[in-house]
């Protein structure tokens, strides 16, 4: 997917080329730059759904984007409830989206 970054801004100028890093979101590699948050890197790559609601399975993504609301929580390198909007990307970071725990997704309650 084409990057959604603002590379040439009429007031802020051209985007400074930062050090490129690769992050993995649900096993897919994505391009990110040093200084990106997980949320900004994924948004720039067109990923807007970071998880689904645990019960209702409705999609969730960036909401407050200041670390307040926990809507963008993801699992990072095995640690859960990490806020994508305030966590900086690191090389080879493994990120997993939040999954549903709904009984409807558990095949009739069978685990």
């Amino acid at each position, binding site marked *: 997917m084409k990057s959604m970054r603002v590379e040439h801004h009429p007031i802020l100028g051209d985007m400074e080329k930062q050090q490129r890093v690769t992050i993995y979101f649900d096993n897919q590699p994505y391009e990110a730059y040093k200084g990106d948050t997980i949320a900004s890197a994924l948004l720039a790559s067109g990923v807007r759904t970071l998880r689904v*609601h645990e019960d209702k399975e*409705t999609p969730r993504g960036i909401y407050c984007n200041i670390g307040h609301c*926990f*809507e963008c*929580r993801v699992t990072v390198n095995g640690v859960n409830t990490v806020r994508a909007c305030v966590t900086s990307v690191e090389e080879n970071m493994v990120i997993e989206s939040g999954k549903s725990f709904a009984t409807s997704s558990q095949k009739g309650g069978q685990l």
Partner: protein
Amino acid sequence: MSCDQTVICRCEEVTMSEIQETANRYKCSSREVKLRTRAGMGPCGGRTCRSMIDRLVEQVGGPSVSHEVPLSYRPPVRPISFGVLGGEAK
């Protein structure tokens, strides 16, 4: 989309109509609304919706609603994991 379907508590996905119905039916405090619907009990700790729940209950309320027990703040101020609380390296 009807404004009744507006999600007030996003963590627990509780809509405006659910909160209003609960407040109407049980004529209860915002704390009881929280306990009945789980609104405000998600990972953000009610920091996003607390004041909205309080206002909605107030609107429905009338004199029979007691505000003696509002939605309370409890430590820690920010939601953190037990691991971090227990000194686990970040």
